[in-house]
């Protein structure tokens, strides 16, 4: 192929993929701005704001919920020798009366010896073990089996993966959220809390990277989804379901059973509520190999489910416009980094041959590359800033960037597999090690820390200040203006590259002329 053609083709590929990815980047930037904005509201004035329910636990030391509906906590186990005892003990310490703990066990190792111990059978709380001799349907199969054996009075079901350590007040927090949304037009099926992957964050660069990633996802992305009323995922752990809805919909055998259930519940007219204030700390996978396997399963199962339910979801009259748009955004979710890499490489090739359309200047190309590249890291920075951990965890963002591009080809392969295969692949479990480097049973939230500080001052109890309050720097403003700049930079460049009129109109006209003239 002629060099001119290679250069020009590359530039068009870069333009298309870069523009496509910019839609994702734009969402990340807007989400970061929304999260920064929400947490800049004075907590004491929050009650009068429209989004107060998201942070409604903030001013409550003790959550009063009145009567206690029966709750069944489900713990899916598969060879959890390192962590089984820890989560069972945490569940026994929960500050609630009417609940049971139901272990859905598929173990093939000596975890079974732990489950057989007599110490779990004192009846307060009730602990039930349901062991299967096969692993059919993986986690979804085990959870569906558990549904057969829940207490008949059960009104709510909570699920934790084995590596989590639920805090004592977590059931009350979940029920409080349900009660806040009782009058919502759309019925709430589930409340999703924050999977605070934190317990071994300082184990290595991978754990620090994943910690930053989850912080961006849970403190920023999901929070913005909640603010704008978009579709929110039930994410495998740290969520409470209405038992009646779960009885109706049931778990199926997908390798991403959580996402599959999420789509089905939205199609049926329910919704998921998210709050970052319900937090349960958990482990982080410690090796690249484990991360790759986990993410390949997510990518494959996620894409498979999107394909399976795509038309039902889009045609459903029960999803709002915001939920449908979010679903469309979720659809190619695991191909993002692939799209970004291909687009950026194409742009570099185009630059090498010095070929691009007239409206597509080198400055515009590079601004788009940088703006796209920095979108997820900025979300990570914002997330850990909002948690008050920026000074300690900022380097995790760099680990996360490295990790995300390392796993990109595997993730892209798995996503394509999920798109074209007739049946899903296997579930490769993520080993839980039980390692702890940082123990935390509270709420990681900068706003809350500030609020407690104010409260202590008002009560003249500064001497008891044991909470580490971050140094006051204009970081919030710095993040805010950096994000705004990164959003408008490509747009400004695009405009300046146009010769006449609006750059967008020019671009569309250019493309249209190209189509018309062949």
């Amino acid at each position, binding site marked *: 192929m002629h060099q001119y053609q290679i250069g020009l083709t590359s530039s068009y590929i870069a333009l298309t993929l870069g523009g496509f990815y910019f839609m994702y980047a734009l969402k990340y930037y807007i989400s970061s701005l929304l999260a920064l904005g929400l947490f800049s509201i004075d907590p004491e004035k929050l009650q009068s704001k429209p989004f107060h329910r998201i942070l409604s636990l903030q001013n409550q030391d003790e959550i009063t919920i009145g009567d206690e509906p029966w709750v069944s906590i489900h713990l899916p186990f598969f060879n959890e020798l390192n962590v089984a005892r820890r989560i069972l003990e945490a569940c026994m310490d929960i500050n609630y009366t009417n609940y049971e703990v139901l272990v859905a066990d598929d*173990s*093939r*190792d000596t975890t*079974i*010896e732990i*489950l*057989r111990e*007599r110490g779990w*059978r*004192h*009846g307060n709380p*009730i*602990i*039930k*073990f*349901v*062991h*299967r*001799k096969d692993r059919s349907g993986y986690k979804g199969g085990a959870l569906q089996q558990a549904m057969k*054996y*829940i*207490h*008949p*009075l059960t009104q709510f079901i909570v699920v934790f993966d084995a590596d989590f350590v639920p805090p004592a007040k977590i059931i009350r927090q979940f029920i409080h959220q349900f009660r806040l949304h009782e009058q919502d037009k759309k019925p709430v099926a589930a409340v999703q809390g924050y999977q605070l992957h934190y317990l071994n964050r300082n184990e290595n660069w991978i754990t620090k990277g994943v910690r930053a990633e989850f912080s961006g996802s849970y403190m920023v992305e999901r929070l913005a989804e909640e603010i704008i009323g978009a579709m929110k995922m039930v994410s495998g752990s740290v969520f409470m379901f209405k038992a009646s809805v779960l009885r109706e919909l049931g778990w199926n055998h997908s390798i991403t059973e959580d996402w599959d259930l999420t789509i089905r519940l939205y199609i049926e007219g329910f919704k998921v509520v998210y709050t970052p204030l319900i937090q349960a700390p958990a482990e982080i996978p410690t090796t690249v190999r484990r991360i790759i396997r986990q993410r390949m399963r997510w990518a494959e199962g996620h894409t498979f489910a999107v394909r399976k339910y795509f038309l039902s979801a889009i045609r459903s009259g029960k999803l709002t416009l915001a939920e449908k748009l979010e679903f469309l955004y979720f659809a190619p979710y695991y191909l993002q980094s692939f799209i970004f890499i291909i687009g950026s490489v194409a742009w570099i090739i185009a630059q090498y041959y010095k070929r691009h359309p007239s409206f597509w200047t080198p400055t515009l190309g590079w601004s788009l590359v940088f703006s796209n590249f920095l979108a997820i890291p900025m979300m990570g920075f914002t997330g850990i800033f909002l948690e008050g951990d920026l000074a300690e965890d900022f380097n995790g963002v760099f680990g996360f960037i490295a990790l995300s591009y390392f796993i990109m080809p595997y993730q892209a392969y798995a996503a394509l597999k999920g798109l074209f295969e007739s049946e899903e692949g296997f579930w490769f479990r993520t080993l839980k090690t039980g390692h702890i480097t940082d123990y935390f049973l509270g709420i990681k939230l900068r706003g809350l820390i500030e609020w407690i500080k104010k409260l202590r001052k008002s009560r003249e109890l500064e001497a008891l200040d044991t909470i580490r309050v971050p140094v006051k720097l204009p970081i919030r403003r710095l993040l805010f203006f950096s994000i705004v700049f990164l959003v408008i930079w490509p747009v400004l460049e695009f405009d300046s590259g146009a010769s006449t009129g609006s750059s967008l109109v020019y671009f569309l006209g250019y493309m249209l002329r190209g189509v018309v003239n062949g």
Partner: protein
Amino acid sequence: MGRHYSVSGGNLYIFTTGQERLLDLGVFPSELNLFEAESAWRVSPWIAVVENVLQKAAEMAQIILQLNDYERISLPTNILEHYFLDGDEYSLLEVIQQASVEVSPVINLQDDAPS
């Protein structure tokens, strides 16, 4: 109040009422494959259930249970299953009072549950 076991629908049910606590499940040798990885079983604070237990294993289990002062009793499967769900002794005790305690030395998997 008491210690009982029953075989119903091919399942072995070991249960207690009142203040009695279930026996240590480790008393069953792994060769019986009762509470092991390769069998399907359930345990709550008051009842343990092994599903689709083999005749030979059930016979051996019966000996161990009798050594631990467990009495065999015939109860409907639905009553036992409900007992697993909520641990409510009321309906169970009603049936137990009506049922006769069996002393058969050999378990027959086919005829334990009343029709």
